[in-house]
């Protein structure tokens, strides 16, 4: 709500107010006029800004454990296999019971499973798995080894531009003992050498 300037306005307009210096009177009048103009403009602008900045006050929706697959469905070959991440998701007003929200690469060696985010840490493109177990980003010049670490040079001899290796995702160890691959699905800031959750 705008502030009240009634007392000042009255003083400026009342015919019984003591005669002031014209300059001072003018100054008060001009200040009151600008304050009123500010209050009037602030009314719609405040309401609008509250709504526009609403996303800043909403909690992050990522960082949920998601069942990706059964370990029996994952080939025990030490190579990356791409899986969709399907989960319940609320998109503003729409509630999706099951919707694909992203992709992960799972790599199984015996009883251990690693999960790598499919998003390139450089700018967020989805990386492709090459036949030999390495990864290549289709957008800019970035390649990664089978364990997700950066390959300094691409097959074409260009310097990899990604600032860090592929992001590893946490795997629920207890679920893995039950034969289920449950991944803590997260997204990370791109373009940083450090891995920081969004």
């Amino acid at each position, binding site marked *: *709500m*705008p502030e009240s300037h009634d007392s000042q306005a009255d003083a400026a307009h009342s015919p019984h107010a003591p005669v002031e210096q014209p300059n001072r009177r*003018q100054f008060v*009048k*001009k200040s*009151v*006029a600008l304050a*009123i*103009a500010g*209050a*009037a*403009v602030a*009314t*719609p*602008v*405040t*309401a*609008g*800004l*509250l*709504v*526009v900045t*609403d996303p800043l*006050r909403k909690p992050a929706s990522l960082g949920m454990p998601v069942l990706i697959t059964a370990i029996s469905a994952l080939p025990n070959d030490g190579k990356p296999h791409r899986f969709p991440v399907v989960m319940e998701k*609320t998109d*503003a*007003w*729409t*509630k*999706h*019971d099951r919707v694909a929200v992203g992709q992960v690469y799972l790599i199984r060696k015996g009883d251990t499973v690693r999960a790598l985010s499919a998003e390139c840490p450089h700018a967020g493109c989805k990386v492709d798995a090459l036949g030999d177990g390495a990864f290549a980003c289709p957008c800019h010049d970035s390649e990664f080894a089978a364990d997700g670490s950066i390959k300094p040079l691409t097959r074409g001899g260009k310097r990899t531009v990604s600032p860090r290796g592929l992001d590893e995702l946490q795997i629920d160890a207890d679920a893995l003992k039950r034969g289920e691959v449950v991944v803590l699905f997260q997204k990370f800031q791109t373009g940083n050498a450090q891995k920081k959750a969004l």
Partner: protein
Amino acid sequence: MNALISWLDHRTRIPTLLHELLFEQIPGGPRWRYAWGSTVLFAFFMQLVTGFCMWMNYSPSATTAWESVYYIQHQMTGGAILRGLHHYTAQIFVVLLALHTGQMVIDGAYRAPREFRFWITLLMLNLAVFLSVTGWALPWDQRGFYGSFIPTNLMLLAPGIGPVVRKIVIGGTEYGGHHTLTRFFSLHVGLLPLLMITCFVLRMALARKHGRHWVDHPRRAAAPFWPDQFLRNVAACLVVALLALFLTFRVRLLNGGAIGVPLMAPADSSQPYSAARPEPVFIWLFQMLKEFPGHREVIGAIVIPGAAMTLLALMPFIGRWKLGRGFNIAFVGACGIAILVLGGKALWADWHDEDYRNALARAESDGRRAVQLAEQRGIPPAGAITLVRDDPVLQGPRLFAQNCASCHRYDGHDGLGNRKSETPTAADLKGFATRQWLDGLFDKDKVASPHYFGGTAFKDGEMVQFVQTTVAGYDDEKRQRLENIKQALVADANLPGQVYDEAKLARVAAGRAALKTKAARCINCHIYDGAGDIEHDGPDLTAYGSRRWTIDFISNAAHERFYGTCNDRMPLYGQKKLLTQRQIELIVDWLRDPMGQHDTTEQPPPQATQPTTQPATRPN
């Protein structure tokens, strides 16, 4: 600083123009009446700001419009205020613009060389109407849907181009699809505001060319615009902002209701909306339609508004005649009076129309329920309408009014709150199978009233006689047995939200046992839990009033489990496919839980695990 200003002035002339505007001499000094124009401009500025911020969150399609507006209003900070400001300022804008036009006529501000300024103002008035009509539809609730639907139908009355323009504007023959919204939306946020801004700019440019129209005050000295006139103008603008704020918060301030404009249930062209009215600013147009019934509708919808607008446009020429200016003033005065009279008549009629007020109250409660469903369940991708169509609280009363209320009543009305003059011919089903309902059934003064068997073929039947003679003569011991039986029946009905303690469960168990005894005489006519004659006349009382029992009863009341060949006039809704299984469930779930406070899934009926000694468990 001065160097910067002079550089800016040399390149753009902006400082000089600002100086000219601020220090323009006003002959006769500052006046409050000169503030009108700036309030119109300010109201439009408010619409641009609030409108843009809603645009950032709005999605125009038949499955996302209501949903995104619901999200703005109920899930975003300040959303209800934002939408309220936009909604009410829209109406303030129309009023200010109309009053400003009237002021121009009274001042003769249309005279040469200012004709174009006047015509542009008239054009803005028309643009404001189109902005209003396209804006109403966007929330896609029942109110907005019908509010814009009717004006688009009026377009059909315009000869020749009407149907063509209508088809283009609503994106097809039928109002109400995705393209109605996408087209209304692009007109509302694109073309129409752009034309309006152009009008404002042209008006200002013309004002600079011809000079403003000042009403000279010979006894007062001229004064510059800044600061005295500026102060008056911004004070008037602040009044506009405060008025919009007050209207937005008025329900909250006056009776503690919600902030902003209530969002009604999602648009549904298959459902009637008996509270359809235009926004208050245009209520006089609505009344004018009612003044010209039948094929004369075109007179009220098109001929009169068109003629009035034409006459307004001709005012610069009429004003040249000797009596012309007087005529013009008289004409806008007459228009103003006609608008007030028609609007007043419409509001007066609505105020005294119980059906309308009932419909409006129902529309608002439907809207609150739709919002509640969206909040509790989340909106599925197919839209909020799917929640509404499958909700017992919203659909139960409608189905009851359509299918049951010709014989039954619900708390004396038809389920939707409409009182009926004719006497009911079947029971009033409010609270069916509750303790209170059964108390009435076993009351000798009530059992033969229209509330129970009064209107039916069983008016003088065995049950009524039993209650009026046998039960009326019960001693204390038998009365206690009957109380236990009622308690058992209520427990079997298993209405949601009941709580049982140990003592109550003991009475339930005693009642269940008593029901099966010859002494209580129930099983002379009814069956209860295996006891009783197969050749019974009365309905099977096993699980009486439970969700399953009631659904089965409505499906086929003439089943041998219920009235058999004695069935009076109860249609066999399921058997004869008069209603679907789901529709019957919606009616039953609503009867059992009118406010929708509980889960509708069936729970086992309350039961003491061992009749007397075990501690009671809570059902549900």
